[in-house]
Each structure stands twice: as C-alpha cells, then as structure tokens.
C-alpha cells in the first residue's frame, strides 16, 4: 500500500467558497450581507473581459439595491468601501489580494480565462473569501484563450500527481480539476465546455495554493513571461515527456488515478490531445522544446532535478 502513504506532516487549506454555474453571481448580494458588507468596490481589468464581468456584476448588485464604485486595477481604492470584488483574470486578482485589508471580504469573479492562481493563495497573499463563476458573465468566446487556461490547469494538476506521497486532500482537488478538464471536451466553445474550464482553473488554483509549482508550470510561465510563447504552447510541448517520465518511474499517484479511470497517463494525454487544436499548439512544438532545453538545462535554482529528469526523457524520446 505504498501508494497510499502520506507525507509525514502536511498542511492543507482550500479557503474560498466556490459558487459556480448559471446564476452564481446572484449569490453575491447575500454573501456580502452575510459578511455585513454593503459598500463593495469593484476592481476590474481595463479590457473587454473586465467590461463584461463588471456589467454583469453591476446588474446583479443593482437588483438588490447595492451600488458599487468600480475602478480599474491601476487606480487607487476609495476610502469608503467595506469589501472588494475583483473581476477578471490575473493581475487584477493579485492587486486585489494586495489591497484588501485582512478583515475586509474579498470576492473574485472569474471567467474561463484564468492563469490558475486567481482562486487560491498567490505567493503568500491571502485567498479570496468567495469565488464566483457564472457563464452569463463570460465574454463572447475566445477559444484559444480558453484552451490556454485549460492547458495551464492541466499542467498544474498533472504536476501535483508527480508527488509519490500525494495527500488525499490534495489528490481530491487534483482529481476534480482533471475531471472538469475531461468533461470540457470537445472544446467547441460551448458554454458547458467553457464552464468546465473555468471550474478546472479554480481547482488548479487550489492545487497551487497547497503544492509548489512543478517544472512544466515554472518553465511555461518563464517562457510566457519572456514572450517566447503562450503558456499553453509550452505546456503542450512539455506535458507528454512529463507524463512519460511519470510512467517510466511508475509514479504511484498516477497509479491511484489509474485505479479510478483505467489508465491515468492516457486520461491526461487524452485531455491534452483534445486541447491541441483549439489552442493552436502544435506548430512550434520543436522550437519550444529547443528553447526550453537551452534555457533550463543548466538551471540550478528551482526544479533542477525535475527539469533534468524531464529533458532526459525528451532526449531519450528524440534518440529512439
């Protein structure tokens, strides 16, 4: 029963309440009043996504007679507010986590475009108290960005399974994330598919809150930051060798997954295969491998072991 052993000691926390599905936004007024908040400040991205989410948000607050100031993430918070609702992906959520005083309720309104950090604790910052995902507030479909988010979530969940002694609490969240991703097929831009992605990204953020990012996630983020490629392109290129390396060393967490769904590796690669086309990831795969290899093969900082492990698998694959 080696595969069910746990770490000697572990700390785990989910944190936020998650409200997901049609009408999820309509729960916001009640959740504000439960926390005795009446004057929310909406912080939103200064783009089309932010505009969509904010419009939907304002209308549901208005129905309950709640008025809210709204600002873009670059602006200063007004003095008179007793709660913050951050709308949109990435930087706006991080900004809200930095700005919100500990005693002030912080809500996140998210769509299917996420970087898989929003719903969780982000590098030591607080987590939101509640996360709302409502397809009614999603902007018209941008399939490529949805697929980018889904691939990021896939990398986070897969990498958490690398731990041989994965804790059952963490495993349960990973399993939920992978299930949402699997349900998201065929990635046709339908609302159901996009909602699955949004839920999977939220699950991945909770995974990230409780488990350090692995090599693929870190490499993908570094390549993304260097503007070399999208996270999803890097994840799509690096996930197959990662999964292969997990199979080669008979990764026991992958075996747990396999007990539930047949073949854990095939399950993950299946999701990946479904995402390749909408994300448009295939074309530059060899470039990405090359770039990642050159950039990270000498890395001695983080993940050095994992990265070398990953690239030796890529290398073996290339030679065979």
């Amino acid at each position: 029963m080696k595969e069910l052993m746990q770490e000697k000691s572990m700390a785990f926390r989910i944190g936020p309440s998650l409200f997901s599905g049609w009408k999820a936004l309509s729960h916001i007024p009640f959740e504000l009043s439960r926390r005795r908040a009446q004057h929310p400040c909406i912080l939103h991205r200064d783009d089309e996504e932010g505009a969509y989410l904010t419009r939907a948000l304002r209308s549901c607050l208005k129905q309950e007679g709640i008025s809210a100031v709204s600002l873009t993430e670059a602006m200063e918070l007004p003095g008179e507010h007793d709660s913050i609702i951050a709308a949109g992906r990435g930087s706006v959520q991080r900004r809200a986590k930095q700005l919100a005083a500990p005693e002030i309720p912080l809500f996140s309104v998210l769509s299917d475009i996420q970087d898989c950090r929003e719903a969780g604790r982000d590098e030591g910052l607080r987590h939101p108290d509640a996360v709302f995902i409502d397809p009614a507030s999603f902007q018209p479909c941008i399939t490529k960005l949805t697929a980018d988010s889904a691939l990021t979530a896939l990398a986070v969940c897969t990498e958490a399974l690398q731990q041989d002694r994965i804790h059952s609490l963490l495993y349960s969240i990973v399993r939920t994330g992978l299930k949402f991703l699997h349900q998201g097929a065929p990635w046709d831009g339908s609302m159901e598919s996009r909602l699955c992605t949004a839920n999977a990204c939220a699950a991945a953020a909770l995974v990230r809150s409780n488990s350090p990012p692995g090599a693929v996630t870190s490499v993908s983020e570094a390549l993304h930051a260097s503007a070399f490629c999208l996270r999803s392109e890097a994840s799509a290129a690096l996930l197959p060798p990662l999964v292969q390396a997990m199979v080669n060393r008979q990764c026991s967490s992958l075996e747990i997954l396999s007990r539930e769904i047949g073949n854990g590796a095939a399950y993950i690669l299946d999701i990946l295969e479904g995402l390749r086309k909408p994300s448009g990831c295939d074309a530059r795969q060899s470039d990405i491998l090359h770039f990642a290899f050159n950039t990270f093969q000498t890395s001695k900082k983080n993940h050095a072991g994992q990265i070398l492990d990953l690239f030796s698998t890529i290398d073996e694959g290339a030679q065979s």
Partner: protein
Amino acid sequence: MTSGEFFQFTSPQRTEAGLQALDRLPNLLRSLGLSKPLLITDMGVRKAGLTELISSILQASGGMRFADEFDSVPPDSDTGTIADLARYWHAGTFDCLLALGGGSVIDTAKAGNILISTGKDDLYQFQGYDNIPGPLKPLIVIPTTAGTGSEATSVSVIKDAERHRKLAFCSPWLVPTAAVLDPRMTMTLSKAITAATGMDALAHAVESYIGLAKNPFSDSFALRAVELISKFLPVSLKAPHDREARLQMLTASHLAGIAFSNSMVSLVHTIGHCAGAVCGIPHGVCMGILLPEALRFNLHRSASHIGEMLLPLAGRDISLAVPREEHPERFILALKEFRQHIHELSENTLPLRFCDIRDSMDSPVMTPEHMILIAREAAGDPSRFYNPEDISEAEIHAVLKASYWGYSLDQDLVKKGHQK
C-alpha cells in the same frame, strides 16, 4: 449533475495532518495569533492520557499551556452542557476554544461557541440552516475518533435536554478554524468504537455521493474516503497500533466530513439520528445497520451513483468482473460483505441488526413501539429533503423494520422512478 448546473463548495478550515501533526499545534496557534486556549474535552479522553500529551507538546514549545480546561462533556452532550460551557468561558479570559475529543466534544464546542461569540444564552434562535449571524471565536479541533468528521463540517447536533430531541445547527460559520489529525489520538480506541465510528464515516461518504446537493468537488472527496475506509478500517481493527492506518482513517473521516458538509446527508442519518435519540443506540452503530436498506430504498433513483462507488469499495477486480448494469446491486452486496468483515474483525462488537442490540436484561433495546415513534420523528426531520427519493412515514418504518431483522427491503414497498 449536468454541466452548468449551479453548485457551491466550501471548505475554509486549515488542516494539519501527519504521524506527528500535533507537534505543529504550538506553531498553528502562534500563526493564528492565539495564546489562551480553553481546552474542551471529556473524562474518557483525559483518562486515556491525551490531554497530558498535548499539554506536554505545548509546554515544550516555549512554555505554552491551556488557559483552563472544561472536561465535563458527557457522551451525549445537551443544551445544559452548552450553557455550562458558555458560563465557564465568560468567567475566564480566553482567546480560542480547543476541542479535544469525539463527536460529542466537538459538537459541544461548536454549539458553545455560538453562545460564547454572540453573548446570547438561548440556543434555540440559532437552530436550523444559516441562522448564525457572523464569524465565531477561533476553534481548533483535535479529533480523537475517526468517524464524525465534525472537525470539517458546518454542522453541530446536540440533545435538547428539555424536549428530548436533537437540535441541529448548520452554518458556514460553524466550520472550525483548524483541524489537527494525529493518529496518536486514536490508537487506544476500542475495537467497538473504531468499527462504529468507521461506519459513520462510510455513511457520510456514501450519503454525500448520492445526496441531492452533491457536486464535483464533494464527489471526489467522498470517493476517496470510501476507498480509504475500505482499505484502512480493516487494518485499524487488525492492528490497532498501526499509525499509518489510523492516520488514513482520520483522513478518510475528514474527507467524508468535507464532502457531506457540502452535500448534506440523507435517509441513513434521518432515521439514524431519531433511532439514536429514542433508543440511545450509538450513532455509528445505527449508520452501519441502516446503510444497506436505506440505499436499496434509493436504488431506482440513484442507481448510477451507487454503482460508481463499487470500484473504491470493492476494488478493481470485482468492479471489472461485474457488468456495469449490475454495479448498483453489487455495491449494496459489497457493503454488506464489508460490514460483515468489520463485524468479525471487531470481535462481534459491531451489531448488524437492531434486533441484536440487547439491554442488561437481554431485552431488545428497540421495541415495535419505538419503531413507530422513530418513523414518525424521522418523517418530520428536515434532513429527509436531501434524500434522492421522497419518503413517507410508512416507508421509513419499512426501512427500519428491514434493518431491524436484517432482511432486504421489499421493492414493492417503495416508489419506482417518478421524478422528484
């Protein structure tokens, strides 16, 4: 659940788990800015030396200690105990509650925290769903049984001393601030308690997975709990000092607690709570006895969900050998086989039928009159609304009677397939 359907999932507490998890208690308290805990426990826990162990861990970490101890929680705590606890708190200076014990101690701490934090002395106004006005005082829970999962739930159930019934409180504010799962706390449990509390955890997981408020998150927690219980409850009984098995059972109970705190429990608990209140039968024992026939009652409504639990309970070989359409029935059979196995490993201390539970005069503890009363009470219990199928008083009586004698529920007695 179909994609797009609304769901809500909450699990705010911190969890510290591990073979030596309690060693991290001092740091946990410090990180929460707490230094004056009021320990809430019972005499059994004290006699087992568990308070001493925690006291020494705190002492070793810069001389921390309990600010005071309230150790008079009875096995079946009631409104009187809650009032005593609140008075005790207000007479001292504390900054948090530290509950060390099983379900009764934890539920007492939770309900006591309502009076402590609101400053009120009447519990009745807070009963039911979401009637607690705001955040409560920090509550750290160290469970000493692996079954109730109460350290992870938004629920507290206590006895109403005046009206002789159960009072239930359900609010997200009731979820404890943190839980510490350390197998040193459960290693000395008797086989009878290990078995019964294990069946309670199994009932939480199973009922969560078939309940009307289930969601994809609670599902993953429930399925994992079923698998862990299937593997580690037998080990905990065969080798009570196996720390890994004890830790896995604490984890399973915690997972099942998170699951049912989100999806609620249904028929097994509806009847079980009333049977416990009327006849004084331990909660876990009621769960083990009622599970198979309560599931059979729901079979036509929840077949696919019941079938999906065959794999984690019975393993891959059985799951692959049985045609998929037979998985639901096979799960109920596997559940009975598992229960029989636990009964034997517990040296026959886990009763399999109500008729086998006898008092000191060798008379059945549950009489036919009791069954009528239990069915009536259960029919009025709000938890039945979470059951996949509507159930009448007569049908509850039928499930109870089948569980009393240990026969299979007559399918002609139950409804078939109308939409709820």
